[in-house]
């Protein structure tokens, strides 16, 4: 039987985390190391349904979040993120430890997993129809993704669309959904069952809190999805819910320009992106009310 992170008593979680805990998310295995209570708290709250592997298993990424040395260990303590002993970021306040871990994990994948095409977009699925949600910051992508995940849609990813270079299918990367500022209260109000982690205030993105992904999505994180739609969401105060066609050529260029490794993959990146656009209907989606937005998405995959 697979051991899940939520099966570990808190003391055991902290003990394993101090020496190295191997967590699986999608196709990647992370060895996480931290002595920060905030990291243990975040993992216990948000990753409870994720499988934990034995210490002897192979890992893709070895990462650590811990206090920095020097005076900052005691005075306004700071933490940093290390990947294979290298610190790619500047230190952050200690109470941002879990958010830093999440950003660091994203960075590991976006910077190294070039055996996939990596697009900056959320992915959800209903009735075996996968919907990709690219979105500029502030467009309401994560809020919509969180609401869909809380409404029975399968969450494949909140941040990274991973395209398999062999078959063009979408590889899930189920992780907590990163909510910012007003979105946090909107999602709390949307569903009282939503489990949110401790908020990190005054980050470079404002206040950030993560939503625990649905257990059903975590259980299916090895099942790839077939893309059917690309929807560019845009939240606009007072707007009526409206779905309209988006130019495929523009969708192609948007995906390419917001990809993490499109150029790096050269012709393969072009062919993978083109095949994705070929397979999808592309839409602009304007909304102001989440319940209406969910109705429109249901119709899209009916």
């Amino acid at each position: 039987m697979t051991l899940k992170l939520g099966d570990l008593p808190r003391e055991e979680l902290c003990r394993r985390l101090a020496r190295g805990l191997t967590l699986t998310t999608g196709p990647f295995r992370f060895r996480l190391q931290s002595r920060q209570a905030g990291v243990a708290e975040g993992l216990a709250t948000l990753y409870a349904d994720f499988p934990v592997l034995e210490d002897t298993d192979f890992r893709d990424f070895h990462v650590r979040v811990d206090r920095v040395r020097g005076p900052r260990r005691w005075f306004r303590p700071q933490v940093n993120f290390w990947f294979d002993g290298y610190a790619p970021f500047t230190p952050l306040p200690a109470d941002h430890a879990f958010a830093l871990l999440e950003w660091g994990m994203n960075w590991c994948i976006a910077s190294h997993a070039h055996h996939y095409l990596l697009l900056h977009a959320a992915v959800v699925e209903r009735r075996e129809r996968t919907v990709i949600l690219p979105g500029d910051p502030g467009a309401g992508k994560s809020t919509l993704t969180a609401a869909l995940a809380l409404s029975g849609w399968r969450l494949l990813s909140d941040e990274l669309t991973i395209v398999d270079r062999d078959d063009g299918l979408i590889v899930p990367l189920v992780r907590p959904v990163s909510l910012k500022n007003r979105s946090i209260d909107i999602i709390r109000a949307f569903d009282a069952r939503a489990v949110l982690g401790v908020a990190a205030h005054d980050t470079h993105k404002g206040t950030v809190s993560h939503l625990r992904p649905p257990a059903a999505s975590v259980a299916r994180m090895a099942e790839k999805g077939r893309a059917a739609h690309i929807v560019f969401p845009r939240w606009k105060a007072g707007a009526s819910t409206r779905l309209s066609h988006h130019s495929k050529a523009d969708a192609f260029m948007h995906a390419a320009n917001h990809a993490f490794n499109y150029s790096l993959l050269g012709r393969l990146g072009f062919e993978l992106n083109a095949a994705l656009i070929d397979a999808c209907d592309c839409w602009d989606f304007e909304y102001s009310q989440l319940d209406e937005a969910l109705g429109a998405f249901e119709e899209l995959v009916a």
Partner: protein
Amino acid sequence: MDIPAPRRWRIADHADLAWRQWDGEYVFHHALANDTHRLSDAAGRVLLQLARCGEKDAESLALACELPVSDVEVILSEIAKLDFVA
């Protein structure tokens, strides 16, 4: 008096173009430069005509693509800047 032959255009060496066309818009990938460009229907048709037929002058291209010669000349000078044609 010698009348200079009209300039003949061709796809640039090593461009190794790949393309897709959706609803009258094109995206082209230039393999050597590893650049991707979104082009209009007219520009896309001119490039594809060259890709299929090898060398052609602007007038022949205009005839084949059913475009005004002046438009084709502008298109050729623009896509030459992108190193798609020479």
